[in-house]
């Protein structure tokens, strides 16, 4: 198991290298001059040129990239162009905010989504099922900022129950969590419903029922445990997604998260900050994925045994397991 974890962490390195390269390349071809952005419209040409030289912006792509990577190896993410603070300082302020919100979002989505999905599956074709499916579809189809604005107008302006923006206390989290989690809830509900339906049809469930076990035991012990893998997959995807994808909601709710930081950094051509925050975020997302994969093993003894088998076979099987989980997650009904 430990070897597996170590190997997975080791495998993250080339991916992170690739990400830094792609981001660096994108930023390299982006028009716009960070030096000009710092000095403003009215700056003298010579001043801008001098600053470009000082910032090393006149060097070739590979020179800059390798210099960046060299610094990175020494644990230095560079200095933000706009604030002149170390990139890590900026990220370390913003990341926890986003991570906290994302965690609550996913927690909320699981608490709401999974039971509703199960209920919907057990009561297939009833009115509960229909309503659930409609709401789930709505959650997926609504543009998120529209939903967020509607929530603010309803709960902050008209009813006056909840604060409209900022994150200064528990009540401030409610609206952002609801609006960001809408899509996740919908997707988790759908996945829970479909994978439960699939499992319920299996023979061993009938066997368990035939053995005279209580319906609740049948559902939660036998069915849910086996339906869990696709649900976990989706939860992982949603969690990773809400870490980086909540930019729009961060803007509506004035949340100082990392999504907004990245967007602003791109707009200001703040290359070190862009690269740094994408890297840190990707690392976090990879960690989440690893954690989810480890949960598979916890849930399913078959997968657990695969993790410790010999090298060659493991690779193939792992691929198959993930593939199956993915396919199942995509399935509905």
């Amino acid at each position, binding site marked *: 198991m430990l070897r597996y974890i170590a190997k997975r962490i080791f495998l993250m390195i080339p991916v992170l290298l690739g990400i830094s390269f792609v981001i660096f390349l994108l930023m390299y071809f982006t028009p716009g001059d960070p030096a000009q952005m710092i000095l403003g419209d009215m700056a003298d040409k010579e001043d801008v040129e001098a600053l470009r030289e000082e910032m090393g912006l006149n060097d070739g792509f590979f020179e800059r990239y390798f210099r960046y990577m060299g610094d990175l190896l020494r644990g230095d993410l560079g200095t933000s162009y706009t604030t002149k603070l170390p990139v890590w300082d900026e990220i370390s302020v913003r990341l926890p905010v986003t991570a906290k919100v994302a965690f609550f979002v996913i927690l909320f989505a699981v608490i709401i989504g999974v039971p509703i999905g199960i209920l919907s599956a057990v009561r297939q074709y009833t009115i509960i099922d*229909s309503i659930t499916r409609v709401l789930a579809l709505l959650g997926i189809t609504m543009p998120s900022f529209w939903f967020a604005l509607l929530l603010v107008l309803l709960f902050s302006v008209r009813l006056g129950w909840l604060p409209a923006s900022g994150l200064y206390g528990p009540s401030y989290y409610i609206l952002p969590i609801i609006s960001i989690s809408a899509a996740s809830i919908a997707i988790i509900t759908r996945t829970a419903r479909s994978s439960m339906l699939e499992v319920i049809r299996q023979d061993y469930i009938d066997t368990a029922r035939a053995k005279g076990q209580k319906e609740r035991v049948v559902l939660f012990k036998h069915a849910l445990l086996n339906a869990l893998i696709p649900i976990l997959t989706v939860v992982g995807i949603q969690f990773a997604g809400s870490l980086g994808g909540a930019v729009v909601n961060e803007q509506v709710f004035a949340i100082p998260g990392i999504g907004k930081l990245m967007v602003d950094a791109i707009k200001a051509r703040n290359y070190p900050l862009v690269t740094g925050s994408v890297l840190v975020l990707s690392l976090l997302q990879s960690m989440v994925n690893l954690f989810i994969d480890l949960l598979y093993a916890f849930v399913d003894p078959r997968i657990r045994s695969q993790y410790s088998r010999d090298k060659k076979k493991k690779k193939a099987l792992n691929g198959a397991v993930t593939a199956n989980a993915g396919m199942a997650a995509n399935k509905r009904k």
Partner: protein
Amino acid sequence: MKKLLVLALAFMMLMSVIACSEPSTPAPENTSSPDATNEAATPAPDGQEPEGSDPATEIRKENLIVAIQAEPQTIDPYAASHETTFISSEPIFESLFKSENGELIPWLATGYETVDDLTIKITLRDDVYFHDGNKMTADDVVFSLTYGATSSFTSTLFGAIDVENTKALDEQTVELKLLYPYAPLLEGLASYRGAILSKAAFESMGADAFGRAPVGTGPMMFKNWVNGDRIELTAFDQYWGEKPAFDNVIFRIILEASSRTVELETGGVDVAFQISPVDWTRLEENPETQMLTGNSMSMTYLCFNNSMELYGNELIRKAIAYAIDVEAVAKTAYQGQADAADGFIARSIPGYKKVGPWEYNPEKSKELLAEAGYADGLEVKFVTFQQQYYNACIEIIQSMLSEVGITCTIEMVDLATFTSMNNNGELPMTVMANGSSISDPAVALSAWPLERTISLRHNDQHIQDLLDQGERTYAMEDRIKIYEELQDYLWEKLYILPLAYPLSGYGARANIGNFDFVASGVPDFAEIEFTA
């Protein structure tokens, strides 16, 4: 199964109707809001303190919360040109003078004496301390003036200061030398851009760190900056003047215009900047909020790149201008909160002359096009970045131009690209605004000097001559004559087409008193009083 769809649609409509429809009577709002307001505001500490130590009926509050529209890059007023920098640095710094209704009031200075056209002697107060505990001396003033003269952001305003020869005569006296006579100087020194910084703090911290934690002499001192969220200032105990009616100022960064309005309505903030014009009436009618509006000092204009062959052609520029209904552009783009521009500087600025607005005459436009050899149609191009009002102007102009057979493409880029293109002279046409931080025609026309004309790129020495004359003439009547002549000339040449004088406005809670609209957009927070 269709009922699923029906249900879905019904739910959607219900949601939007509930949230969008405003309460028709203000009554329920009134009964429920005060509680809600308090509740909402408590986590961000906003509790009203009972009567302060003063025996007078002064109401004190712990926090004054101000919503600003973007995060400033720095709070050093010499190192940026963005409004948010000035708003957040205003309570931290003070200038040598204050300007009220054109009157110069000594502030950190006790007075000044004009020795000759190039020399001013300024005497300073001797009871002023910086937030770091150092006493303000002539050295700090000389340092600040030098900084202002050399920084690329303020050299338009203070570039005339002779850095070599400006010096401290003694601890309380500064001799300010100029390179050439410069009329707007005192007005500039009296604005928030002439802030006096602590030399010691600046030199020990370095420019970048100083911009993140500045040290001035103002009533509030810097306390904390939470990246992306807020900037906190707290009262400065050793402040020489009158203490403000609050202990802290918190600038909250709220990017979404509608969120700023909502925060103001629900009491989450006390003051909010950049309120969208559609919300003005709502805030005026709401008994809990007020709108402070008035003419700003900026002018929105259609900028031609005169260095390009096509737009350097006067016939083309005028053909385009005749095709544009300036009145309709101004009213529509700013949702009624702007006037059609009829001059090259804002109306409140001395030297303003009404020369327009440009006539809307599509027939004449077609004639001029034919005369220029484009009877069969002309293709023009706008480049713009994401600025709501500029884009609105351009979108309307695009539609107007199509009526006279001018095909207009709009290229939208982001601000960084726009800035680069602008500096490289690659913008064909765009819409931009010419703001002015002080009420002086020389500064309001700062886009025109030959060495600064990066966007409109005219090459007209006559303009430069008139500008030089205007800048170097001290007598106001003579100056005004020069600027009137200049504006007539600009109108004749039409290197740019003035479009709109936008009104500007910020909102405040109803209990904020002694807080007036200022045209510069940077109000004095320290004077705020709370009413019950």
